[in-house]
């Protein structure tokens, strides 16, 4: 079975006056039909840019995809022109963004924003599209959908708007949905509702999901596979269970030990990762995590470690990946 989405050596750089920002610097991953893949990392690691690249939404200038391939159902999305990609974006690939406050158009009704997509992509007429919009709003748990489609985004709360975004992403029955920090702006109880909804709907409709987040708890609950990004590269990949049980990259290890956990006894102190994330315009010759790494050896300063297998479907980009366990213990 070939993958639904296959990204190969993608490089997206931003050409700014301060220098070339290598936001995404050679990443490869794939998404199979119906699975949930998480991309985890901290701000500035390139996780959003990698998703925007898939959708052809990189602002140009200053940004440009300088290399690689994004194969979706066999087509290379990078080679498509604007018109062709527009027929895929929203139709085959849905999107859910972080800010439910800004991702809806404030001067159009909810109904119009939903029907517009369906009229454009599915060639429906207004009446049919409206019927379908009501159906989808009910599906995502919005009460009185007949009344809601006449309302404007400012009538709705943040959680409701995110539900509308989900309805919009689903309404053309896409094969893949990219959710960029879908619940970061929401409260915990609402976050739980929205994530559970997304999980159930994508599972029921067989839609693959790329979920981009910095929240390790969200990943643990909802993702099948995980890609951990740092400084524009994927530094670890594997099944969620494997990555959490046995992280094989010092950064993942550091991330996991730096969050306090509710299910474990209180620790005396947290164990943070020292230092700051690197400046993406001035990346050194070696591993970009080197300045913050507790396990570094001489080789790390001169050679960039490749992403290599450490186990069944588990990959890590670290020269010391085999030796982390000992030092940790």
């Amino acid at each position, binding site marked *: 079975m070939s993958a639904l989405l296959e990204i190969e050596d993608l490089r997206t750089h931003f050409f700014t006056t301060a220098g070339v920002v290598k936001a995404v610097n050679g990443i490869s991953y794939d998404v199979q039909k119906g699975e949930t893949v998480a991309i985890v990392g*901290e701000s500035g690691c390139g996780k959003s840019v990698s998703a925007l690249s898939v959708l052809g939404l990189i602002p140009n200038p200053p940004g440009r995809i300088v290399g690689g391939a994004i194969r979706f159902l066999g087509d290379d999305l990078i080679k498509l022109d604007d018109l062709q990609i527009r027929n895929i974006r929203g139709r085959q690939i849905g999107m859910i963004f972080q800010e439910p406050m800004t991702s809806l158009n404030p001067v159009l009704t909810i109904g119009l924003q939903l029907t517009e997509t369906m009229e454009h992509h599915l060639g429906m007429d207004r009446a049919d599209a409206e019927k379908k919009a009501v159906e989808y709003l009910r599906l995502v748990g919005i009460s009185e959908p007949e009344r809601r489609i006449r309302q404007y985004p400012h009538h709705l709360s943040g959680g409701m708007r995110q539900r509308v975004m989900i309805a919009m992403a689903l309404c053309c029955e896409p094969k893949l949905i990219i959710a960029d920090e879908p619940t970061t702006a929401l409260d*915990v109880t609402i976050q739980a509702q929205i994530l559970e909804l997304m999980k159930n709907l994508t599972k029921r409709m067989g839609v693959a999901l790329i979920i981009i987040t910095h929240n*390790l708890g969200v990943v643990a609950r909802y993702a099948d596979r995980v890609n951990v990004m740092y400084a524009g590269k994927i530094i670890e990949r594997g099944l969620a269970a494997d990555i959490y049980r046995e992280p094989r990259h010092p950064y993942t290890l550091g991330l996991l030990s730096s969050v*306090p956990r*509710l299910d474990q006894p*209180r620790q005396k102190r947290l164990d943070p990762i020292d230092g700051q994330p690197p400046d993406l315009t001035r990346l050194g010759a070696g591993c970009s995590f080197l300045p913050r790494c507790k396990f570094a050896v001489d080789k790390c300063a001169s050679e960039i470690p490749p992403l290599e297998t450490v186990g069944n479907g588990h990959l890590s980009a670290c020269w010391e990946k085999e030796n982390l366990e000992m030092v940790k213990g």
Partner: protein
Amino acid sequence: MIPDASALESDAQYSRNSELGDVLVDVKGLKMHFPITEGIIFNKLVGLVKAVDGVDFHIRRGETLGLVGESGCGKTTTGRCILQLERPTEGEIFFEGADLTKLDQVALREYRQKIQVIFQDPYSSLNPRMKIGEMIDEPMYVHGIEPDARKRKQRINELLSVCGLNPKMADRYPHEMSGGQRQRVGIARALSLRPEFIICDEPVSALDVSIQAQIINLLEDLREEYNLTYLFIAHDLSVVRHLCHRVAVMYLGRIVELADCDELYENPMHPYTRALLSAVPVPDPEVEQGRDVSFVAGEVPSPINPPPGCVFHPRCPIAVESCSQEVPELRELKPGHWVACSEV
């Protein structure tokens, strides 16, 4: 985390014993209602936003009280009232025995020095046109802490290194720093006045995970070093559990549960607290897959028109009929464990 722990040892003011002492802050019946008006020339009162609607708690010296709740529950407003950035509609706020709500601006100045704040957003809480050093210098100058500019300079360097920054950063501007570094500047600025009480309003929620842990450790070190007292306002329950001695859970302007930290997390009694705790995913797939989650339905109602009776009853899984009529009192069900629910 403190690179030079002895840097401020000369300050005799800071050498207190680290046990929990007397009650430092005592908030009684605090209410903060914001008016909603209509019309441009003739302002007509059309409603009230009951941001804080009757809150009582106290904080002992050396203690960290966590104030948790979702957005709009009034936790930040409570903090602003203690700071006297808002004049509360009703209620009393005692600090070292003096009622802050009764003091005028001149009398308050003495207390403003003792009560400091660390804000959530390290990007908007620093003046982009001032150098880091100037920002830490200004409060000391205004409050006349150190009239000698040279000594102030020395103290700025000390404060920066205590907060884990290179003293050379004093000549930088905020835009040259990362989020975590800026938050350290905010902490150094709060410390510059030798405060006794610091209100931390979501100090780590804008930061990345790896940086969050650094700042949490720094706050803990500073508390021990200078016997500070914190009011820690946050929505992240795992961070609150890590840092706080006692925790108060707020919902729609009221405290619904208040208990010692371990007691609250091990034995939550209020249905809202339970729902909150259950909604937090644990970073471990094995735990998560098998975990039974009880999600609370619905959304937080508007504080303009809160539901009658218990404010949580429309979302509550164990609500009975009387919940929509009677406001439950905060009752002490176990020593030190207060719950505002008639059904537990």
